[in-house]
């Protein structure tokens, strides 16, 4: 074997050009496949992450009936020791309690149905972080007036600002996205625009009796920070729940649907309002990563800790079966696309192998004529292909790593209407790649298989070789 190896190695370096071309085709195969799959997986990851990081959580502990009937009667007792125990489980990043229900919100003559999410203001920072969604900038008449007075801002930039009249923003990034100014204009005018559009806001303290109201709801109810809103609904065991709450802050939710009807308050205030002492509707648990294995393990561990059969832990895909289906469906399309790529790649590899064989027909003929056993020749050629494959594979993988890492940390930022709609659905408008993972090796495995397949051709050719014809050249 060692001899075949030496000969094979020498063969490769004898004809450098051919070696480079053949291994190049393998190199590109691996490179493209890995990059494409990385992008695909990156965007699913991204989608799922956006959802579970700050919306549904990785795992939720709920009353077993809650998922089908999200009523306050299906709440359970908050138990601090158990919550701490869950935090202690390996790979658990955060445990956040929620109390959620539906109510009517009213102010003046306006009444509207809304969803109430009661949180722990401190713990929630690790989860949905409502503080980051507080409205910081608003394009109002006064703001535009101030911009005009400041004088320096050019007319067409002002026009663009006016087009976004009455919109509110929780971040300067979003404001920049919607204004869509050129980079130059951004640099010159943005600080000024931000200053004129700034509004003050507030957050909830621990045990606060006040509420945060989502932006569109606040404008429907015609309330601002400091005003009061009346909440009415059905509490625990059918008790009528009513109360007046001061507005502490206004938050902007990216999705217009949610922005229309969200109220946030502290858990103690909600428990008092709904007459649900000590109760919560869910414990949201976040983990370090969302691999299925980890989810199942942690879910099992949590279930052991829970006191009775009425409460159980559910993973995000059990809570969101429809989204899960959607992602699966999309992923299959992705795999199909990858398949197409493989087709093409395979023929690329095959083509070069074909060429190599026809080029070396004479050489093979000579070797066999002077006595080399066909079997040995076959082994030599096989080793050559393996080496070529290995070189191409390794180089391909190595070359793809920097690209993947770069676009993982600095993904392509999308702009325009597409970006705005994505943000509305709660996704960051970026296209990231996925972190290195199993898919990485899978691509390599598949390409290696293709090399093996392609090797069959020269082996067959050698088998059928008739020396005299080969010598003729």
């Amino acid at each position, binding site marked *: 074997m060692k001899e075949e190896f030496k000969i094979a190695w020498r063969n490769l370096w004898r004809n450098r050009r051919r070696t480079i071309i053949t291994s190049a085709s393998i190199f590109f195969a691996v490179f493209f496949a890995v990059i494409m799959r990385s992008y695909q997986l990156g965007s699913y990851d991204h989608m799922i992450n956006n959802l579970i990081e700050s919306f549904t959580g990785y795992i939720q502990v709920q009353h077993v009936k809650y998922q089908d009937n999200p009523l306050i009667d299906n709440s359970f007792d908050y138990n601090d020791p158990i919550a701490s125990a869950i935090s202690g489980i390996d790979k658990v990043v955060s445990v956040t309690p929620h109390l959620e229900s539906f109510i009517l919100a009213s102010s003046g003559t306006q009444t509207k149905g809304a969803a109430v999410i009661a949180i722990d203001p401190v713990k929630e920072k690790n989860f949905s972080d409502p503080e980051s969604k507080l409205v910081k900038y608003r394009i109002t008449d006064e703001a535009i007036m101030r911009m005009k007075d400041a004088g320096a801002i050019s007319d067409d930039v002002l026009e663009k600002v006016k087009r976004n009249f009455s919109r509110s923003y929780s971040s300067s990034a979003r404001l920049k996205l919607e204004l869509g100014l050129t980079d130059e204009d951004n640099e010159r005018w943005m600080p000024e625009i931000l200053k004129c559009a700034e509004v003050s806001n507030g957050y909830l303290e621990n045990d606060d009796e006040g509420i945060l109201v989502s932006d569109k709801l606040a404008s429907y109810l015609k309330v601002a920070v400091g005003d009061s809103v009346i909440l009415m609904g059905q509490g625990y065991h059918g008790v009528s729940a009513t109360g007046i709450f001061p507005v502490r802050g206004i938050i902007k939710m990216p999705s217009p649907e949610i922005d229309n009807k969200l109220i946030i308050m502290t858990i103690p205030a909600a428990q008092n309002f709904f007459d649900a002492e000590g109760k919560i509707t869910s414990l949201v648990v976040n983990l370090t990563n969302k691999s299925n294995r980890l989810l199942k393990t942690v879910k099992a561990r949590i279930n052991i800790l829970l006191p009775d059969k009425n409460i159980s832990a559910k993973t995000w895909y059990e809570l969101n079966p429809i989204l*899960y*289906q959607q992602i699966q469906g999309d992923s299959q399309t992705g795999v199909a696309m990858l398949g197409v790529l493989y087709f093409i790649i395979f*023929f690329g590899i095959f*083509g070069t192998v074909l*060429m190599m064989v026809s080029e070396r027909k004479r050489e093979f003929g000579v070797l066999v004529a002077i006595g080399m056993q066909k079997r040995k020749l076959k082994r030599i050629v096989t080793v050559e292909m393996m080496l070529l494959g290995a070189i191409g594979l390794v180089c391909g993988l190595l070359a793809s790593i920097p690209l993947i890492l770069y676009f993982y940390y600095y993904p392509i930022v999308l702009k325009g209407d597409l970006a705005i*709609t994505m943000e509305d659905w709660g996704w960051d408008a970026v296209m990231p790649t996925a972190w290195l993972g199993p898919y990485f090796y899978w691509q390599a495995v598949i390409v290696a298989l293709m090399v093996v397949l392609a090797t069959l051709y020269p082996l067959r050719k050698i088998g059928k070789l008739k020396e005299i014809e080969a010598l003729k050249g």
Partner: protein
Amino acid sequence: MIWSIAWKNVWRNKKRSLVVIVAVTLGIISGVLLVGIMEGWTKQRLHDAVYNEVSHIQIHNKEYIKNEEIDLTVRDIDEITQGIDSIKELSGWVKRTKIIAMATTPWANTGVIIYGVDAENERLVTGIHKEIVPDGGEYLDNQSPGDILISDKTAELLKLKQYIVTDSIIEGLRKDKVPEVVLIKLETLKDKRFRSPKDFKEALKKEFNKKELERNGLLITDKALDYRIRNKIQITISDKEGTPIQGIFRVCGIYKTTNTGFDQTSVFVNTPELANLYGGNDILTHEIAILLNAIDDADIVKEQLSRISGDNSVRTWKELAPDAAMMNDFMIMYYFIFIGIIMLALAFGIINTMLMAILERTKELGMLMAIGMNRRRIFTMIMLETIFLTFVGALAGMLSGWAITETLGKTGIHFTGWGEGFEAIGFAARVYPVVTPDFFVFITIMVIVTAIISSIWPARKALKLIPVEALRTE
């Protein structure tokens, strides 16, 4: 002359050429198919959004958009009507009453939006009359005033989508070759009425094992389905002072579109009946929906109408169904990336193969140069060979791709298992791939560009061969 030489050269080494051609063909076929599927999905979503949900343009009172109160009707209707009728791109339009309501049955209740429509005119503008489910009654009729049309989803929420196993159903299943074992177990469920799909499925799970369910479950559920057509639904709306008013309607039919979200809240009755309910001789119009001859006319017509619309808001389908619009844009981006990558891969494959070919033909090329063929001609010859190769493959690919897509476009591809997920966001579980001429033009251009670019390097390589050396190689 060069052309014919190049062409002949291509066919001289059949094996090599065939490999490249097959690669290009298969690549293009798969590309066409995949793009066809995505295009089919997008087109379907768009079509359904326009023909079942939002039409091309809708007009509402500006205030109605923020707060759907019963007195916020479309202003200056007569002027608007005149304006609409004068549009030359018009295909049809309708007026609708649109009120938020509660629908109640003895077993359940749910919030809905009740549309008061003219059944005849609606047929010209929307396609819902084509979406009545099998055994699901009929569409609305001006002659039957007290009728209400609801969706499959609404029926489910109101517990009007029921399941019952009767003797005749068991007979029917027997004819469908369902095994006796299964039918005997089914007897225990006989004549019990299940008021929701969930209840029925759970009952089935208790009786049957997994295998039996997998094989027969769908058929049994299908046959046992019983929509309670002609049952009463009580509708409660709010009049101008906020007082609840109630009326009874009878289910005339069940429809189902690909968008469960739309289905869930939309119920339809005849306009005069709804007017009777809120007690007026006035028919209130909250919504005007306009269908044009071509979707691209939407923006222009919006401009026209905006000028005469006054206090009303005129919106196109893009603003009314932004998700369908976004899908369109998303898809275009996807195409570019996908096709781009395929072309790149192809290019490398072609370059590789051609390079090898040149290495192989060193002697021949050297000879040609020695006998005086100038460099430019050789360059052109190699380039043409590459281009021809690519083209033959591309042509074969496009023709077969087109043929396959056309066939599948008629039969459709069914995605079982993810049906529910797709329909929740408005995508059909059955896709009809379609490829537009635009796309073919795009591919052709890409192929030409790829071919030309990939031919450059091998051709230059060929030139660098020095004739003497070339002759010397074996």
